[in-house]
């Protein structure tokens, strides 16, 4: 019996090596030996005719043979599959350096991108976002903000008029008044929007964007103003040095101009910062008692700070845009860069 096993194994393996170049013959050979009516099955059937004492040993030998042959044939077959698969996949190879295909999303205007970024910083600090009209009453744009009629402070903002009493807002500050009229402290609000000034040259656009912000509560101090604006500017420009200078806006007092270290030259002095090493970025101050009186708040009870900044300027600094006019020319070669 063991002789038969050995012979069969040799024979089968020889056949396997002969057939290994063709899948069909390999499969036939496998069937011949390992099929239901194959040689190995015959051998197993023949076990019944052996004496019982030999049967067990012979059975083991035949089963082992079966395992070995199965392993050999299946290995050969799967190697066949593998190489065929490799071949097929190789044929499917693409030029991965060809450009990808997609529906390209459009780009948001740089002014929008900066506005969103600033809004997100302030909502994170607990500020609400409010809006107001772009065509404003003289009262909201000037009068209530402590710019009396016939006052030279009005010259600070060249104004477009619709009628004697109606103007294109020259700043987003009127939203302060509108929000304070409607609500009560505590208030923490920012108001982004479009504003207009009758001024047009290389560095002035007759239409531009501002973000106004203010905070009103009991005991809000100038030190608070400094802290909030410093924190904001550090977030916006990534840890920049900040300085505060006295300045004048009729609706705040003490008034301040806020500078950051020049982002172009790092403070060494360059064309953008006119050699000073600093860039004016924000106007700010403590809300003037006269403004509180206009909205019916008691300036003895409440205090607050307000600030405003120009979005275009921030966009130009952050993106390194040298020419303000590009922002309103709507040239796709420009817009698609953002």
């Amino acid at each position, binding site marked *: 019996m063991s002789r038969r096993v050995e012979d069969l194994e040799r024979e089968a393996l020889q056949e396997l090596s002969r057939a290994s170049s063709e899948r069909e013959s390999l499969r036939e050979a496998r069937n011949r030996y390992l099929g239901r009516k194959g040689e190995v099955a015959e051998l197993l059937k023949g076990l019944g005719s052996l004496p019982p004492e030999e049967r067990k040993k012979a059975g083991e030998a035949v089963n082992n043979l079966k395992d070995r042959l199965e392993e050999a044939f299946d290995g050969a077959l799967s190697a066949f599959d593998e190489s065929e698969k490799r071949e097929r996949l190789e044929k499917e190879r693409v030029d991965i350096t060809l*450009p990808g*295909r997609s*529906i*390209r*999303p*459009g*780009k948001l*205007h740089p*002014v929008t991108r900066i506005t969103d970024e600033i*809004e997100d910083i*302030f*909502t*994170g*600090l*607990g500020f*609400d*976002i*409010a*809006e107001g009209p*772009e*065509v*404003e*009453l003289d009262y909201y744009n000037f009068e209530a903000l402590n710019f009396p009629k016939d*006052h*030279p402070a009005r010259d*600070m903002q060249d104004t*477009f*008029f*619709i009628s004697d*009493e*109606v103007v294109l807002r020259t700043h987003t500050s009127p939203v302060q008044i509108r929000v304070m009229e409607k609500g009560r402290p*505590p208030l*923490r609000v920012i108001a*982004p929007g*479009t504003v*207009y000034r009758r001024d047009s040259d290389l560095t002035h656009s*007759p*239409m531009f964007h501002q973000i106004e912000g203010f905070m009103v509560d009991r*005991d809000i*101090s*100038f*030190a*608070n103003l*400094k*802290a909030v604006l410093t924190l904001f500017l550090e977030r916006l420009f990534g840890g920049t040095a900040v*300085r*505060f*200078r*006295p*300045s*004048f806006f009729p609706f705040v007092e*003490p008034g301040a101009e806020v500078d950051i270290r020049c982002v172009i030259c790092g403070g060494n002095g360059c064309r953008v910062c*006119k050699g000073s090493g600093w860039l004016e970025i924000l106007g700010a101050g*403590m809300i*003037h008692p006269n403004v509180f009186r206009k909205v019916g708040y008691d300036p003895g009870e409440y*205090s607050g700070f307000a600030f405003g900044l120009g979005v275009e300027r921030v966009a130009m600094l952050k993106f390194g845009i040298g020419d303000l006019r590009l922002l*309103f020319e*709507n040239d796709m*070669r420009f817009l*698609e860069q953002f």
Partner: protein
Amino acid sequence: MLFSYNWLKEYLEGAPPARELAERLTMTGTEIESVVETGGGFTNVVTAQVVECERHPNADKLSLCKVRTDREELSIVCGARNMKPGDKVALALPGAELPGGFKIKKSKIRGVESQGMMCSEVELGLKDTSEGIMILPEDAPLGVDFRTLLGADFMMEAGITPNRADLLSIRGMAREAAAVTGAAFKDKEFRVEEAGRPVGECAAVSIEKDAPCRRYAARVVDGVTIGPSPDDVKARLEAHGVRSINNVVDVTNLVLLETGQPLHAFDLDRLDGASVNVRPAREGETIITIDGKERKLDPSMLVIADKNGPAALAGVMGGSPSEVTDSTKRVLIESAWFEPSSVRRTSRKLSLSTESSYRFERGVDIEGVAKALDMAASLILKLAGGKAAKGPIDIYPGKAAPPEIAFSTERASRVLGIGVKTEQVLDILGRLGISARESSPGVVSALPPTYRMDLTTEIDLMEEVARIFGYNNIPTTLPIATVAPGETGKPTAFKRRIRSLLSGAGFTEVMNYSFVSKELFAMAGEGAGVELLNPLTEEQTVMRADLIPSLLENMARNLAHKREDLRIFELAPAFVPGEGVPVEKWKVAGLLYGLRYEPGWSFPKDAVDFFDTKGVVERLLEGLGAEGARFEAAVHPLLHPGKTAALKAGGKPAGILGELHPDLLDRYGLRKPAYVFELDVEPIEKASGKGKKYRELPRFPESARDIAFIVSEGVPFGDIMEAIRKTDLKTIETVELFDVYYGRNIPSGTRSLAVRVTYRSRERTLTNQEVEETHGRVVKTLFERFKAEVRVS
């Protein structure tokens, strides 16, 4: 305001160097925008004298000179030949820096050490060409910084905020510089030698009752000789941007620059009656001002009149007939105080702004009127000769004592966020010339000087304390506030959502000016618009009521540089006339032009069409959660009459979309049609009010049936779809159009449509029989309502 550092120093003792002063002023609220060094862009150059000159031992073309300063003798190698012993020269010492960054150091030239350099005018940046080194006048002192000899100066440009009228002069700026640097302010004194007759015999002045003039002072100088001013006066005026006219007029301008008090000089002999009256102009009066223009006056304007009529516009400009000319012998010098608002109104009405009106509008020191007058008179005597009449005329009906201001250190501490101490307040206010005393514990009583008209309330003084204390010395303290997350207002959030959906759909955002030309405004068929009273240009005169015309301009601009495929959008308010204030309606508009997909190797090169446009709008509405939106065929002046749809949201008109009218293709040089949409944000936002709600997933199987049918082209698919749906709202889940066919094999005037109807119940599995029954009704509806010829069902 432009001012000279040297002039400023005439009023200061212990002034810091120019740039340090500029920095200090800037950090205390007087922004110095620029500092320009004039006449000397070099350092370490001194005057010296040539002692001897020999030939360089090792070079024929060089000289070796001994040159002495006030303290030492130096040996200098020089290439020039034009100097001789005894000549005074400008010597750059080791360490000197010349224009262009050229640095001088000791060096060996052909084996001989040179301890400096004798400079030419070119090397000093004084001229463009020169021959040899610069030889100085014989009387030049030795060892002096050459810049001082040249009159080197710094011109500073200050941005003066409207509240600080007191800084619109050299004297005022010097006072401020003293307060913020600790230098001492030393005032100038002027005495007028009064050698003439009493002034009352020469001229008379009166102020009409209630005229907005609180003080009017005048002096008379008799026997002046009009002529040019000396060079130093001319140079000073010109450096400050004032043209030199003649000695008398120059004096008035010089005093204006130095003291901030505007003055006017009249030719007294040309004032009718040798008298002036300050009064409102009478109706119908005119004046020819010194710029030669005739100006019509009205009673809101204040004038200085003689017997004959207006001789000057008070505080704005003098009149031509009485101006000082070469033949003038007797002058009347006016120094007055006019109400700021009166001067401003006159100046604005006449569109005439002058150095004088600029200062009066902002406020001139009423107590400085007489002093400026004396300064002018004494300078006129010096420059133009003559005799001053005895005594000034000084009519001062408006003298008022300014009120004291109470300043609480406790309130200041709360507003500023620092502990403010009484001694500190007294010190700071004192430095600013504010007389202050502690009237009760923690309360300071303060009386600002008359030139600080901006200081009227406590908060004004708090600002003074803060700015001298230094804003940068105030700590940063985060406010203590109730914890509450910030809320993005609903309109803002909705607009953000629109932007994000459209950019996701491939649209790039543009931003156009809100004002457009009348032509562009009229394009969309608008009637009256919101017009600017004072536009800058014709291109920017009307507030736009439609966004599409702007987008068309953007398209043209991009086409001009061969950008052929576009998807752009804009989100902005449109402006419509309203009662009183115009109404603002936010709109979102978009434009599609060119290829459907971006040009490239792998996309079909199909052009966009109406349905791309509609698809964008549909997806936008879906993304915004707008419900009940409907499209209806419509007409619009900008659009193709057969390819225009009007959108309704919540039953309200909410915008239009369609193909650009073929007439406009030529105007923009388009080869293919362009497509646009313009939607109203508000109705869409209203229709989007409901939040998202989950709908249970279907638990029972669906059953789909396809129908193909031929129907007249005139039947809108929208009607067919609605009719199919309504056949059984309960079991018809979706109706999808999957084919539209025109052309061969079907009669002309018809089209073939194919739809898939999906049936499903939410309660149970529908039997085949039920589906067939409903589907049969669908087929019947198509036939009966639309005369559709069903081909497959």
